[in-house]
């Protein structure tokens, strides 16, 4: 007596035959029965404590997404975050800078006393180390304030509401509502923003989000914007309100960046990334009391130190390059001057100058070093510099190097729109695994930056 043998192949064949007899709706039945089981289990195990928090949540939601308060509240929160970052970062930034520069002086002196040659001391301490010191002192305090604030908003559950509020704009641009999330992440770091686009499940809309992430200024670019806002805009106001005006003009630039994000998304959705806005589903989680310890941990370890570490990795070689450019002379003038005068005509055409363009070439690895590099070349002093006061800075730029309001405005625009830093480009490559998209991600903003600044420069010259 032999049992009929059933082989795996038989089972598969049987399943294949039965599959055809399935009703079209069997997926619904499977999912429904899973949910039914889940509900049965949760009814038995979970004790519902009434719905007071739910009602509170609903009331908050109604205010946060309301016609009257929705948008103003968003802008206000954004302004407060920037204001706290600007005001709070000033003092620790100065303290860090003086401490690190003291280390530099001390170490350079020690090197010299041990008889090391000038070029070695200069290269290591005034080049590489000074580059590092700048980045750490300029970036660490604002990041240590900005990222925890950002994480608090995230933890509260406010960011999904922002995405909810802004979705209609992104939908019209042919993009995904969750692009608002990766965009806000970009304020911290564009590379992190590009990674954050993973929450978008449609490939087309994810690419749109990746390519436009650069249009919100990251932490590394805020120092430039803040400097310009303080020196050129806020200087016209009494000191009591200056910090508010500075924060306000930074918010204005940010809003402009959002407008560019939407505009470029719109154009991309109608040209190289043609397609309709796809499915959008977003869970609005209940509001939660933020866990302070967890926030400190995630924002300091995961974000601040991570971003700082990669900034250090790029700033050290950039510092070396700056030192070399400023200290190698050909025919009596240093390389930096040679290159910047070659770039000058192009720079003038877009309302900037050769030094600024050279700065942006040197600063491709890390946007944080834009301001110090620029000042260093202007002062032809041979190393990155910090000026004593904002007044001295204003005198240097306006009186000695012919800066005008146009230069300041165009530099702000250029800083907002220009190509992303090397880390972001590499991240785009890693996320898309395509050299083509990485190249577009780098060149599209660059072309836009040149186009827009050329336009404003031409219009300004024509008007005045």
């Amino acid at each position: 007596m032999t049992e009929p043998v059933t082989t795996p192949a038989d089972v598969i064949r049987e399943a294949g035959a039965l599959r055809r007899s399935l009703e079209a709706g069997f997926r619904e039945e499977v999912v429904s029965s899973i949910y039914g089981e889940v509900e049965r289990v949760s009814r038995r195990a979970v004790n519902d404590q009434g719905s007071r928090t739910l009602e509170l949540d609903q009331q908050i939601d109604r205010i946060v997404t309301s016609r009257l308060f929705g948008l103003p509240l968003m802008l206000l929160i954004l302004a407060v975050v920037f204001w706290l970052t600007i005001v709070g970062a000033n003092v620790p930034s100065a303290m860090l800078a003086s401490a690190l520069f003291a280390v530099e002086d001390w170490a350079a002196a020690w090197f010299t006393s041990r008889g090391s040659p000038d070029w070695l001391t200069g290269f290591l301490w005034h080049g590489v180390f000074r580059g590092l010191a700048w980045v750490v002192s300029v970036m660490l305090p604002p990041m240590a304030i900005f990222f925890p604030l950002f994480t608090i908003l995230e933890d509260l559950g406010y960011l999904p509401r922002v995405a909810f509020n802004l979705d209609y704009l992104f939908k019209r641009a042919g993009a995904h509502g969750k692009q608002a999330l990766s965009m806000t992440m970009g304020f911290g770091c564009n590379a992190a923003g590009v990674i954050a686009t993973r929450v978008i499940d449609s490939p087309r809309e994810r690419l749109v989000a990746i390519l436009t992430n650069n249009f919100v200024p990251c932490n590394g670019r805020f120092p430039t914007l803040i400097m310009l806002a303080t020196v050129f805009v806020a200087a016209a106001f009494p000191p009591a309100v200056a910090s508010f005006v500075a924060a306000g003009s930074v918010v204005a630039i940010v809003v402009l960046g959002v407008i560019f994000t939407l505009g470029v998304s719109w154009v991309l959705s109608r040209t190289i990334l043609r397609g309709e806005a796809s499915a959008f589903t977003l869970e609005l989680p209940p509001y939660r009391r933020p866990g302070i310890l967890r926030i400190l941990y995630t924002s300091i370890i995961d974000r601040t130190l991570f971003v700082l570490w990669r900034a250090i990795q790029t700033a050290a070689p950039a510092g070396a390059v700056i030192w070399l450019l400023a200290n190698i002379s050909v025919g009596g003038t240093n390389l930096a001057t040679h290159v910047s005068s070659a770039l000058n005509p192009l720079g003038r055409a877009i309302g900037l100058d050769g030094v600024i363009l050279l700065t942006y070439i040197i600063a491709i690895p890390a946007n944080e070093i834009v301001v110090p590099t620029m000042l260093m070349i202007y002062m032809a002093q041979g190393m990155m510099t910090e000026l004593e006061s904002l007044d001295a800075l204003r005198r240097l730029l306006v009186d000695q190097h012919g800066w005008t309001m146009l230069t300041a405005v165009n530099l702000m625009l250029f800083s907002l729109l220009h190509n992303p830093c090397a880390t972001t480009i590499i991240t785009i490559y890693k996320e898309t695994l395509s050299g083509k998209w990485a190249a577009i991600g780098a060149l599209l903003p660059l072309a836009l930056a040149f186009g827009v600044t050329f336009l404003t420069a031409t219009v300004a010259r024509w008007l005045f």
Partner: protein
Amino acid sequence: MAIAILLSLVAFAVLLPTYGVAAQWRVYRSGLARERTENALKHLLRQATDGHSASFRSLKGELGLSDRELLSLAERLELEGLIHSDGTHLKLTTDGERLALHVLRAHRLWEVYLAEELGVPVDRVHAQAERQEHRLNPQQLDRLSAAMGHPDIDPHGDPIPGPDGVVPEAPGTVLSAWPLSTPARIVHLEDEPPLAFAQLIAEGLKLGQVVRVIERTPSRLVLSDGENEFRLAPMLAANVHVVAASSEPARALDGVLPLSDLPSGAAADIVALDPHLKGFARRRLLDLGFTPGARVRSELQPFSGDPRAYRLRGTTIALRREQSDRVLVRALQPERSR
């Protein structure tokens, strides 16, 4: 010296294996040859299915080749044992038919993938599938088919051949021959020629739609799905196939409305998901818990009016109008809603 360097650079760029110009050119040529072969076989298969016989002339019209290219192509196909010719007529051999069915399967599976997983509009999938169909081997097709749950029909309703090369029978009667005022479900919209198909889509006809023919004259045919009327030229009606529909569409049932029309604050029970919603988008809604029978309440409306947030199974979920349109619900009476 400079010239020598330049020359060696150019030589390098041309001869580099895989990335060099020469290697890329070879890849391009072999891809083109495969594409031509497969398009020729596909044409022969279509002619055979339609009961016509294929000839050099029809093949030439289909592929748009010069006489010389066509002759060398036919020679190569015959040499490879894919076709045989008796002077004027061309026929597929068994091997040729197997390969042609593979291409047909690839084409239709690609169409399903593009339409249902990537959300490409249904009038654009054909052109894209024409390019993609030459890129997969049978094993890859099996995996694609399995990943989508072995679909039986493509987005136009054409049957998809199985891995064994068996083409399921296409059901349905042509709409022009359907009796008046008998409910019919659309099972096939012919996608060739593309212009006629685009017109059918523009009229608003969809696969799975239940319609009745309410008027037929020599110059036109009028359909109704209970809400809208569709006017078709008799030529277009010949491109639509239908079967007898067992029931009226769910939307026409009493008190059923799309979730997007549910007033703010009102509660409802989900009746069904729109059958036209397929693939990824449908799975996403199901995964979120939008299953038939679930209780849902319209909760939040932002200043823009869209998207809206719905309370479902203890969570709040925002949907754009395009999604909430696809969830059919029956509103509860206010006193029962909470």
